[in-house]
């Protein structure tokens, strides 16, 4: 079953096209890793898919209420405890249960600690545990493994694998190898937007000058 399909998508940053002609489909139980040099537009693409900014052209199709988005920043409140942080997102997404997420991300011992006393890696794990409590099948992750040590990366890969195994799907932008052999890799470099003179899509202000 296709969870997310993208056709001929063009995305803009600051009003200028950065990527164009991006097409892919993500099936249930599969993962797709986005690669490409810094500034190519991975974050912009993911934000567009998450609905935070409009696409310049192209089509994004997915069933409603299936996506959970995780950005660079984890969105944790430092004065709240691990449990409180998770409980908040669980009730926003209407799921309510956080026990599995605590266990899977190995946060059980830290449950009552305030988020500001966590190490960077522990915070990241808490941020990823947030994904588990959303109960959404499609994960859209921006650099999910930043500041994780090798053991935590393995833990994360395990969580993704379990998620895929239970019929979910994941779309990730990442530089490092997660050890997820089953993940497909999509290199974004060929989709870099060309200037309008070479046939690329014009940005909104360029278009106005045509």
């Amino acid at each position, binding site marked *: 079953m296709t969870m997310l399909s993208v056709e001929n998508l063009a995305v803009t940053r600051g009003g200028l096209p950065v990527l164009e002609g991006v097409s892919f489909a993500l099936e249930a139980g599969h993962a797709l890793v986005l690669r490409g040099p810094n500034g190519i537009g991975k974050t912009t693409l993911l934000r567009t898919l*998450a609905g935070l900014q409009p696409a310049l052209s192209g089509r994004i199709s997915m069933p409603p*209420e299936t*996506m959970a988005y995780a950005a660079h920043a984890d*969105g944790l409140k430092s004065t*709240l405890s691990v449990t409180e942080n998770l409980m908040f997102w669980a*009730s926003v997404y*209407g799921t309510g249960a956080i026990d599995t997420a605590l266990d899977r991300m190995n946060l059980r011992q830290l449950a009552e600690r305030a988020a500001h006393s966590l190490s960077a890696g522990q915070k990241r794990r808490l941020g990823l545990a947030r994904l588990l409590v959303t109960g959404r099948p499609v994960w859209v992750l921006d650099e999910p493994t930043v500041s994780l040590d090798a053991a935590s990366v393995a833990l994360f890969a395990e969580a993704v694998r379990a998620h895929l195994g239970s019929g979910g799907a994941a779309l990730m932008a990442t530089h490092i190898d997660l050890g997820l052999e089953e993940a497909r890799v999509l290199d974004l470099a060929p989709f870099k937007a060309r200037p309008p003179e070479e046939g690329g899509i014009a940005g909104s202000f360029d278009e106005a000058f045509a």
Partner: protein
Amino acid sequence: MIALLTRDLRLAVRAGGGFGLGLAFFLIVVTLVPFGVGPEGGVLARIAPGILWLGALLACLLSLDRIFALDFEDGSLDLLATAPIPLEGVVSVKAAAHWLTTGLPLVLAAPVFGVLLHLPQPAYFWLVVSLMLGTPALSVLGTFGAALTVGLKRGGLLLSLLVLPLYVPTLIFGAELVRRGANGMDTQVPLLMLAGITAACVAVVPFASAAAIRVNLR
């Protein structure tokens, strides 16, 4: 949405200063006024309604820039915008949390501060009524200003410049209501106008705030 409200209230309590700072500022304003205009009771009694309203308004303004700034910095605003609750609801809840932590304490403290300024006896009731009716509009409009300036580094001063002119009608009708109450005049017109402005603000302004947040997250 209730979860968001409890989270914001909990954050305000834990961070400290949420309740305290605004109130302390209000007290300082009320304390400084007699130093400026002289300790004569008659003068103070006459300007007390205006000073109390102005003090409450400025105290409200103090904490506005924190409404969205913290959530913007730690990324929760992005996550809230992609969460299954409408952004209009998020900004309304944020405004409600701001009112509960800033506006409501001011309403409750205002009669006490009124004593310091020799507020005439009949005005106490109207002071509480007018602040109770008016401060929600201040929070909602402040949320709009905070939404406009959320991505900006030096947003604080700009926020005041944007929000204060929007406060003019509320201030006029609020202070007028207390003044009329103090003088035993008819209070119906300012009362209804104040309530009407607040009701309209609460109903409509969150849409503008949510639009501004969407633009700022883009």
